[in-house]
């Protein structure tokens, strides 16, 4: 029980810090630390995501960042895909699904590294640009 609470807290902190959703942490956490099988872990992760996304999007909406009509459209339009995805997951064996999920984790890791390196390059370019402005030569 303490393990589950710790997983939730840690996953939430990373989600808030990096904007990478809870699911990619909930699922391996539920498998590795709570001993759920891959199917149970995925299903349980989905339900755990709902309150987190609800609170997060409420805050984002107050900042005016949510395009409400598109969010609602995407949510409602996802229902066929979601049902098909769940049906497909339940057709696959636990080990195939687990290996595919490990692949997804590697993709998310690569996305994070790429995003970080691009942000660093942009920051470095901005600093170089600032140094090159004429104002710098006045002092």
């Amino acid at each position, binding site marked *: 029980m303490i393990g589950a609470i710790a997983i939730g*807290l840690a996953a939430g902190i990373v989600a808030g810090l990096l904007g990478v959703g809870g699911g990619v942490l909930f699922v391996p956490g539920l498998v590795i630390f709570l001993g759920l099988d891959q199917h*149970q872990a995925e299903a349980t992760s989905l339900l755990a995501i709902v309150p987190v996304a609800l609170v997060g999007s409420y805050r984002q909406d107050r900042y005016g960042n949510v395009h409400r009509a598109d969010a609602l459209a995407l949510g409602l339009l996802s229902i066929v895909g979601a049902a098909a995805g769940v049906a497909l997951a339940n057709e696959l064996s636990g080990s195939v699904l687990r290996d595919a999920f490990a692949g997804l984790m590697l993709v998310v890791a690569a996305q994070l590294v790429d995003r970080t390196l691009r942000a660093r390059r942009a920051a470095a370019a901005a600093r170089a640009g600032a140094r090159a402005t004429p104002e710098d030569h006045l002092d």
Partner: protein
Amino acid sequence: MSAERPPWRPGKLVAIGTLAGLFSGLFGVGGGSVIVPLLILWLGYEERGATATSLAAIVFIAAFAAAVQGLYGNVNLLDAALVGIPAIGGVLIGTWLQQRLPTGSIALLFALVLVASAVELVLR
């Protein structure tokens, strides 16, 4: 978002929604790693709006997928509550920390944790 609307916008929304649903249902995740890049690439969103809109869409997507998983009897309600409720507090802490910490190094560290967890998952 810009006032000019790209052609085939409804078609693109259908495609993104369906792909995100498939991804979410198959992997038990929200689908943000599909939605965010596609909103930027296909619908001209900037990153902040894409992330926020994706998060709001995920409320519905994850709820649908969880409901279908519930029909298969795979949802563990107690564990979902034990993980999901502390995660709300975690998100608030993480968002607060984001304004005060250099997130780049943390992102790289976290990428390493993901790779290690993926290896652990496969080798179990």
